[in-house]
């Protein structure tokens, strides 16, 4: 008897929790860097997105394929006094809208809760099944 088969449902929910955890971190990073104009790779911060994909055999939950920067152009804001302003007085700001990020955060939180609910249910039916032995 191997426990990884017995707790397959729990492991799937756990992979969902892990994925949403990463998504939460990415959203937090986006919000924190909403006004960042300098990055090591040059230019303003670029909004990060998570890419989810299923695990190969299709019934082992979800995995985070990567965290990729978005390709959309930076927002140009007129602010001649800014140290990072160009010759026209425009500053390249990150392409982040905080309200949208908050919606993303909410979605990630709810998805985390949904995975927790699935896990709780699995645990509950396991306990009910074990009670049959009494």
């Amino acid at each position, binding site marked *: *008897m*191997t*426990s990884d088969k*017995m*707790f397959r449902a*729990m*492991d799937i*929910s*756990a992979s969902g*929790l*892990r994925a949403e*955890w990463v998504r939460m971190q990415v959203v937090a990073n986006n919000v924190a860097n909403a006004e960042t104009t300098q990055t090591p790779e040059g230019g303003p911060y670029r909004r990060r997105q998570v890419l989810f994909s299923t695990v190969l055999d299709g019934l082992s939950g979800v995995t985070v394929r990567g965290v990729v920067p978005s390709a959309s152009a930076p927002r140009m804001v007129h602010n001649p006094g800014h140290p990072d302003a160009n010759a026209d007085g425009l500053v390249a700001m990150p392409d982040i809208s905080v309200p949208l990020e908050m919606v993303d955060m909410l979605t990630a939180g709810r998805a985390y809760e949904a995975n927790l609910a699935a*896990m709780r249910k699995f*645990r509950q039916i*396991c*306990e009910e099944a*074990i009670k049959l*032995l*009494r």
Partner: protein
Amino acid sequence: MEPVSVNLGGVQPVGSGPAAEPGGPAQGSNFREMLDGYLREVNSLQTKAEMAVRDLAVGKSDSVHDVIVAVSEADLSFRLMMEVRNRLLEAYKEIMRMQV
């Protein structure tokens, strides 16, 4: 009157149950080994849960969910093991109480 010999099959000794049967599975997977393997499994899950809690406490890992999963799995498998054990002991006692 000739005594009639009927092979009822009946109960076989636990240790040599399936292995002694001709044509049965040849591998020595007797009851004791099965129980032993299961106990090991439960024990390894307990160790895993303990490691997960320690890693979180020490700061080596940041995933609360991994700890929850490890502890839940350890808890559930341990409880299942306890119920099976209780059931087995009950059966054993029942047999010991039998009038011979």
